[in-house]
């Protein structure tokens, strides 16, 4: 059975069908990428999966469980973590604090225990920290551990956001344009990290990305969408060769 199954998903904003009958399934352990021209509804699909938007039709299944109507905060505890296109970090906190916030789903103590700082709170804190340190090592963030987000370069923030997603110990990671705004060098690093996440951590990755060099390097399968509808599904090379995909991109460029 697939880890994530999206069936006939649809949503409309004021009459515009942003996502219109999209179906796909992501197998455990693969890197699955959604590509498409601007405004094709890629990020909207992400927001539907993380339940920030209410779909008007269709179903989303994670590990066999129907999550279509779950409230947004119940998604992360299932093992789904995500990043955002425009980076939504906690700007006034340090990298370390951000990653610890990522541990929220693993929280073991009640607020009243926190307030009294019982010994089990300390034990839990140490354990959170150990997990976070593993992520810091994995993504090579040790140099930035105690820096405030507000002062970090854009490229580092992108990595911190991925680190925060990993801190929760997810099974599925949704990456919303991980390479947007990154330099060529940084994009290469990003490709390494995505490969490591897949191979070393055994994670399943669902990604939205524009940079085709990154897409073809890391993706096992690619789904192309345009105007909210699925166009083609296959390997990166297959999808890029598909005439409908080419037309969608060229068409989009002509009108742009």
């Amino acid at each position, binding site marked *: 059975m697939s880890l994530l199954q999206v069936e006939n998903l649809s949503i409309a904003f004021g009459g515009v069908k942003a996502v219109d009958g999209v179906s796909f399934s992501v197998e455990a352990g693969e890197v699955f990428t959604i590509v498409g021209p601007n405004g094709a509804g890629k990020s909207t699909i992400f927001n539907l999966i993380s339940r920030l938007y209410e779909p008007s039709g269709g179903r989303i299944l994670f590990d066999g469980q129907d999550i279509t109507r779950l409230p947004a905060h119940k998604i992360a505890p299932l093992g789904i973590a995500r990043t*955002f296109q425009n980076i*939504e970090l906690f700007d006034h906190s340090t990298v370390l604090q951000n990653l610890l916030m990522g541990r929220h789903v693993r929280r073991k103590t009640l607020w009243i225990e926190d307030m009294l700082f019982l010994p089990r709170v300390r034990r839990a804190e140490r354990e959170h920290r150990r997990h976070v340190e593993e992520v810091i090592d994995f993504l090579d963030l040790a140099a930035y551990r105690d820096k405030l987000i507000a002062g970090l370069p854009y490229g580092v923030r992108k990595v911190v956001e991925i680190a925060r997603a990993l801190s929760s110990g997810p099974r599925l990671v949704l990456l919303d344009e991980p390479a947007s705004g990154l330099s060529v060098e940084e994009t290469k690093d990003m490709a390494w990290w995505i490969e490591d996440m897949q191979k070393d951590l055994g994670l399943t990755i669902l990604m939205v990305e524009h940079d085709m060099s990154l897409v073809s390097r890391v993706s096992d399968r690619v789904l192309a969408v345009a105007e909210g509808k699925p166009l083609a599904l296959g390997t990166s090379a297959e999808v890029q060769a598909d005439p409908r995909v080419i037309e969608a991109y060229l068409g989009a460029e002509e009108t742009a």
Partner: protein
Amino acid sequence: MDVLQLLISGIANGCIYGLLALGFVLIYKASEAVNFAQGDMLMLGAFLGITFINTGYADLPFLMGLVCAAVVLGVFGYLLERFVLRGIFGQPQFAMVILTIALGFLIRFFAGTVWGHNPMSLETPFTGQVLRFGGLIIPMVDAVIIGATVLLTTVLYFFFARTRLGVAMQASSQNQMAAYYMGIPVKRVNAIVWALAGVVAAIAGVLFAAKGAVEPSVGLLFGIKAFAAAVIGGLGSLPGALVGGLLVGIVEPFAGRYLPSGFGQVAPYVLMLAVLILRPGGLFAQVSQKKV
């Protein structure tokens, strides 16, 4: 008949609330911030009106005095934006809230120093006059207030809907950066909005002073009620502000008459809380959702 009498007095009061609420909405529309000093600007307008019009002071004719007060407060609003508020351009809206609260305190102190703390009222050519319709007696003041409000609201409505400046204000309120790139001088537009808010506050203030007594602290409480009015209407909507003002104005005398004492004063706030709880964006709400 009694009910009708109460209604008319409520409408006249509501019009002043509505005008003050218009001031809130103007600034909210332009900078998506709330001017907590708007009530104090009304108070300032009232005192300016008294200074220009009353015998023993400048002794100008009523309309002339009104125009003078409006001009002075308009310039005041412009300067305020230019020299104080521009300092926090680009800061979160919360900074604006705090800044205008502080401004309110300063305006109150200024008024107390200049005009003292004893209540004053405005002498008008129509003070004490009444209109009679059958058994119905309408004080001339109320009629003037209602007429002036209708006129001003219409003018403002067409200003925002039709003129280039009005449209520019709307645009800059929704996305300062984008408006700036489109060639709208966002900062100057902001300053003009503040001037306009000053003018509206002056007119509301003069009408307020024509109906009752003014003292420096009147702006705070009156402002909060007008606030309730603006919020009931939904902060972004000019007609909403007027409707909200009228609702507050009408609810007040009726609650005072028919509810046990003590409950009358809180009625406008309870009304506002009820509206906010049922429709968190007010009656004329604009849908709000952050895009990620």
